[in-house]
């Protein structure tokens, strides 16, 4: 790798770190500057059973009696050393709460991502190779239709169908593989629709290229054409969509976990919202931002490895239409 590539990597890593820091500040400000003072109103609520001493301790720990900027500085300093604070509700360190909740959510989102990719490829294949009379039009309408269904509706329908009516397996037991799979389907369908839309648009574009005509004249069947020539160039831009979708999966896990009765980050957010447990909420938001930023950084750095046209050495070659490489390009293109 050349020095120019090294500079590119360093710049992107720096940007990513900056975004995470800014997200921390932004969430802190949203939580502490917006009207209402949930922390003290929660602490003073006699029902929560905080003694005066507890309250003083918490106020002193978070410097709640000092200006917002001092609070921010303290909080930011602790964040930089990996200390995410202590839950107001349970007095447990936030890192421990997150550590307990993460595995289940990661399992769910990974399953959902797998389901989403699989469904998207199947739908994309259908749009290209089903005979027009045998429902190609219907398959083409599937992604935008799927995007119009709220994920909680998909979840409830799946729980009812598999859990209650067919009664094949326990749908709400989070340890069972099938339950995770079904929850992953509920979470993955909206994301698969987004991936499918991009994939189909790219396949439609690639199919008009000269090399496809050439391959056909060489006698390749549609299936070989799809597998050997079309899928790879069309799949590259999908990497950007997938990277963005990871954030959405984390956000969507809130609803999916609630519908399927799973204990994870989503349920942690739910209980923290009702209990006004702000340190936990802030930690989850920053964690989501870290995951998003890291995945997108990885996608950006992977592109040159996957696509020879984007390698620094190839820059001097004739310009080609490259896929959207950065988040900004992808979002601008998506609109």
């Amino acid at each position: 790798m050349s020095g120019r590539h090294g500079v590119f990597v360093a710049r992107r890593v720096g940007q990513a770190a900056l975004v995470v820091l800014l997200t921390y500040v932004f969430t802190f400000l949203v939580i502490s500057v917006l009207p209402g003072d949930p922390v003290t109103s929660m602490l003073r609520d006699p029902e929560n059973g905080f003694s005066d001493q507890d309250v003083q301790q918490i106020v002193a720990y978070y410097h709640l009696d000092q200006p917002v900027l001092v609070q921010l500085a303290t909080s930011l300093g602790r964040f930089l050393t990996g200390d995410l604070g202590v839950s107001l509700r349970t007095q447990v360190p936030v890192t421990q709460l997150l550590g307990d909740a993460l595995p289940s959510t990661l399992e769910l989102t990974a399953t959902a991502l797998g389901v989403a990719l699989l469904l998207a490829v199947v739908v994309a294949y259908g749009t290209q190779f089903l005979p027009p009379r045998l429902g190609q039009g219907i398959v083409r309408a599937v992604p935008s239709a799927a995007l119009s269904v709220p994920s909680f509706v998909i979840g409830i329908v799946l729980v009812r169908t598999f859990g209650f009516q067919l009664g094949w397996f326990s749908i709400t037991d989070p340890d069972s593989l099938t339950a995770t799979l079904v929850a992953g389907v509920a979470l993955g369908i909206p994301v698969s629709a987004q991936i499918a839309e991009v994939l189909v648009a790219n396949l439609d574009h690639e199919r008009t290229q000269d090399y496809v005509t050439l391959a056909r004249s060489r006698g390749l069947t549609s299936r070989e054409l799809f597998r050997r020539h079309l899928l790879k160039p069309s799949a590259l831009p999908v990497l950007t969509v997938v990277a963005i979708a990871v954030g959405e999966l984390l956000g969507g896990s809130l609803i999916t976990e609630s519908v399927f009765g799973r204990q994870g980050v989503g349920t942690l957010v739910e209980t923290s919202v009702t209990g006004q447990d702000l340190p936990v909420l802030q930690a989850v938001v920053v964690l989501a931002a870290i995951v998003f930023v890291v995945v997108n950084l990885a996608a950006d750095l992977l592109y040159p490895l996957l696509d020879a046209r984007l390698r620094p050495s190839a820059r001097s070659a004739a310009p080609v239409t490259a896929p959207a490489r950065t988040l900004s390009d992808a979002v601008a293109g998506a609109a």
Partner: protein
Amino acid sequence: MTTTVLPEAHSPHDAPNVAPPGARRPARVRRVPVSLALSVAVVVLVVAWALLPDVFAHQDPVTGVPAQKFLPPGAAHWFGTDHLGRDVYSRIVHGTASSVLSALVAVGIGVVVGGVLGLVAGFVGGWVDAVVGRTVDVLLAVPGFLLAVVVVSALGFQTINAAVATGVSAVAVFARVMRAEVLKVRRATFVEASTLAGGSSLHVLVRHVLPNAYRSVLALSVLQLGVSILVIAGLAFLGYGDPPPASDWGLLVASGKNYPLAPWLVLAPAAVIVVVVLSVNRVSRRLRQA
């Protein structure tokens, strides 16, 4: 999301003013596709539901008839009745205002705040652009739904706050698109000409940039309206909107979830959400093609 390329910018000055506007596509008969006509009809109906719920639903959405609880859909109750004997159709119609109008509020916030941010960033450039750019990066890095949940929990659980929260999570997309449009138009020859002819920045902004950007922002707004309806329904589903007896569509699904033997309690409001969002998305696709 799609990869549809934004419509090319053109200015009123570029258009050939030789032929009258109607004569540009002489041979083609304009035909409105059935799906588009249906979608527009659905949107009109929903707006009517939101504005005049009493005209469309005569039964009381709040007080039910206990003797008539859990009636399946039929002639008297199109979508059946719930556990308190309330007419589900009536509850859906009366919940339209807060479900759909709050989505409009959300999109309005996104367009105004995001639009102004993008406009200023693209127009002024320099450090302003950098600051706006990083802000947008942050807003994009936090999952939209999670961001909405955090904002609504800071503001308090009400449908109007859910709308504001949804709007905040939409700001980034609008800022990006508006900035891209501004940069595109600023490079155009007619803007250069206008500046050379002595046009002020304000003149360029009002006469050239905004008219050219409005089409893609409009298409994005309609698309975002569908997204916002879904996000607000999700927030209401989790109980972050107005509490019962309000009848936001998401809340209707959430309370119907507890009665598996009366599936219409979930399916009716769910179907309404799906049909409305489908229709809105169909209209948005038409706007992007035009």
